[in-house]
């Protein structure tokens, strides 16, 4: 089966160690109000319209083609990160890719955790590590902010932690007043205490350029939170209760 990609970033910065390629898979079950890749949400190809021209976001690749593209560069690269959108939505495609690349490339799966558990586990078993893009842990609040309850995500993480040895980290965007609330951070720290394969909690500062691509998708960016609220800079309180290393990535 073919995979639908909306972008590829060569030498990407924030998606893992060393020189990496990040493959962005199109389609996502979540609708985070702060999503900075709105073109990654729909599972259909779409044309982005910029002031200076257009660009098609959404290209079908066969597993063989993507594997060949990556393996061709394996001597130059430290690894590949599969991100999205939500890579779990295209798990079968990804599994095929990973079956071909096997041990040639260090692989990271960057997922929200929302999806079929067996597929998540199969991917986790083939990858070197995972990035869980956690957001809001409270189930009801998660529905409002991300379009989905958090229960499936939390179940998946807890179960995977028991059944699969692959290490993973949490990556949490610091959305002012939403994800950086004391309630949310405490919940994350408590969750972290239950888990044995969690390696770190990485916070990603809110990016004021987040809304940049909405116009190109024919949409308007209207975040129902105060973008200008002072961002969380001090995570000492969190570090004090979190059992693993926690830091804000710059």
């Amino acid at each position, binding site marked *: 089966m073919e995979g639908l990609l909306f972008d*590829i*970033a*060569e*030498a*990407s*910065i924030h998606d893992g*160690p*060393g*020189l990496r*390629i990040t493959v962005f898979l199109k389609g996502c079950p979540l609708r985070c109000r702060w999503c900075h890749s709105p073109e990654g949400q729909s599972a259909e190809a779409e044309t982005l319209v910029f002031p200076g*021209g257009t*660009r*098609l976001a959404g290209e079908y690749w066969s597993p063989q083609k993507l594997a060949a593209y990556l393996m*061709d*560069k394996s*001597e*130059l*690269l*430290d690894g590949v990160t599969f991100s999205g959108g939500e890579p779990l939505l295209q798990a079968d495609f990804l599994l095929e890719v990973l079956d071909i690349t096997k041990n040639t490339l260090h692989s990271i799966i960057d997922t929200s955790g929302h999806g079929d558990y067996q597929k998540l586990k199969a991917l986790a078993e083939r990858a070197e590590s995972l990035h869980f893009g956690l957001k809001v842990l409270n189930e009801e609040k998660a529905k409002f902010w991300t379009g989905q309850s958090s229960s499936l995500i939390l179940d998946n993480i807890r179960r995977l932690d028991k059944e699969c040895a692959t290490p993973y980290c949490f990556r949490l965007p610091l959305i002012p007043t939403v994800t950086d609330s004391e309630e949310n951070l405490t919940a994350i720290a408590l969750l972290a205490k239950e888990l044995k394969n969690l390696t770190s909690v990485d916070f990603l500062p809110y990016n004021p350029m987040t809304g940049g691509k909405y116009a190109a998708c024919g949409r308007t960016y209207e975040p129902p939170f105060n973008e200008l609220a002072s961002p969380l800079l001090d995570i000492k309180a969190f570090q004090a209760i979190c059992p693993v290393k926690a830091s804000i*990535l*710059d």
Partner: protein
Amino acid sequence: MNQRIQKLREAVRNGFYHKFRRDISRDDLNADLESKAAGLSLNGRYRLIYEYILNKETPLVFPGEKIIFTRTIKGNPDFPMNGLDKEKPRRALENLTIEWPILLKEGLSGRKAACQKALEEKKDDPEAVDFLTNAIAAIDAVADFAKRYAAAAEEPNQRALLEKVPQYPAESFHEALQSVRFIMSVMRSAGGEHMGFGRFDQYMWPYLENDLKQKVLTHDEAFELLEEFFISLSRDADLYRGVQLGDNGQSMMLGGCDRNGNPAVNPLTYMCLEASDDIGLIDPKINLRVDSNTPHDLLLSAARLTRKGLGFPQYQNDEVIIPSLVNFGYDLEAARDYTVAACWEFVVEDGRDTPNLFAFNFPLCADEAIRSGLKAGDDFEGIMGRLKTAVDAQVKDFKEECGQEGYFLPEPIVSVFSKNPIKKGRDLNNGGGSHYHYGCQGCGSSSAADALAAVKYLIFETKQVTPERLLAALESDYENDEELRQIIKAVPHKVGSNDDYADDLLKRLFDLFADALAEIKNNGRGGRIRPGSGSAQHYVLMTQKREGQKLKATADGRKYGDFVSSSLAPSPGVRARGIISELETYGKLDYKRICNGGPITMELADSYFRNEEALLKVVKLIQAFVKLGCQQLQLNTLNPDKLRDAQIHPENYRDLIVRVWGWSGYFVELSKPYQDQIIGRQAFGA
């Protein structure tokens, strides 16, 4: 930067030194020189320039300064042609570097003695007598000028320094720096253009090493001297403009190997990268030679300088360049000692190559082949056959130009500080060197390959477009068929994304180009022609709408007047797959043959450098560049939004630096076409 250095930096950026200039126009200087030049030999004329212009200069020594020289007249003279045939082409010495170690080891006095000895030996050779007597007179003019400078110095240290160099061999790092600054400045005052500093860290390090050993200098004092030297290069740089302000050729080469092939990186290599990063000015332009064994921490220092956004260092891959120079015919030891001229053109010792003499127009050849082939009903290989004819025809024009009689203008000081002119009794430009090759830039290559790929794909493979439709669109500059232009833009095969379909066409273009140039066995001066991949200012000159512009709309969807690709980069508006894929594309070229230089040019979004880890990624990119067998790389930073704002509010962006082609300049000092081309580049990693 300590406080004193900071003040010196502010002074050059504020144009503090300009107020000491007398306003003598170029026209007045030239009129004077013309009247005095009647009846003189070419050598005599250049000697006259030195005497005349240095005599007009007023020595200026500021309290406390350690690197001394400031221009005091505004104009730069032209070579006086009185009594000569003004119709014949003139070829001045430019785009090369003198052999700085000779200056440092022998000084003016040593070279004068060598001239006198040679004169004794060659007194029956009138040409040698003419060259050597004029060279001695030029040396005297420079030495007298240096004496006047020494007399003007009030501080004893300054006076002692100026009495010593450039007249005598340098014995310390400080003296070596002053000697280089002084000689470079007098060459420029006399009208010399695009002279580089060569392998600066190699010839300077012995002096610094000795000073450090003898404890004459501490590391910090040496670093301060180096920074002062670097800053001094911006004092008068506005007087030496090439195509645009900033195109002044003050470049230097760092790193690489020695003449035996052993690694030659030394502590000064690092210091130069750090000093450049610290002062953040466009001069000197830094070049770095790298290979598989370049130390990681040196690459990290280089990456830090890349992050600074000055548009350099430019990276050179020794593993590709040295074999290609040997393959072309240079000696191995000399090839290992290569440097670059002003931008990227390789310079090998003991010669006078003219690396930028010709500019080859790839898009024009492709366009002629496509239009005539489609009209004649050719298949694609038929068009490629026509391409060969078009390439050969353009090269034939160069061949004819090679045969033209012209004046090869001498330069006595450059000749004196070159290996063999004194021994041979001939100016470097007139037989004093051992090689006289020309270079030909290969411009717009990616645009040409994209046009061919579009034709192959749309007309012959998918048959989506008829030849008639494309021809009509080209004739009307796509006015009546914007739809076709969009179809062409969507063709999946473009140069720069490691796509074999397009990249093979790029390779074939360069092969045809190199084949045609290889047919010229003698360029009229006993040399051949080196094919290159750079394009300098030609992405503008070859495309601007003007009378006689041959390049109209092209089959890559480019409209008349739009830019073509610059050096090795994807065509304007093409979104390449990514940085690594682009390196893979250009790693496919046969640099054994394409040996004149011309960098891959790519831009990283300045936001790429948000964190320190980005530096490690840039190091890996440089290593990938080496591993993939690419030749030269300019890795720049870019923020198009900032540049657009700078066009509207130039007053807020006085210090904003951009890489233009082989040089960096202040964005607000460029004319608009050059600004627009930079804004249109693709920024990776945004």
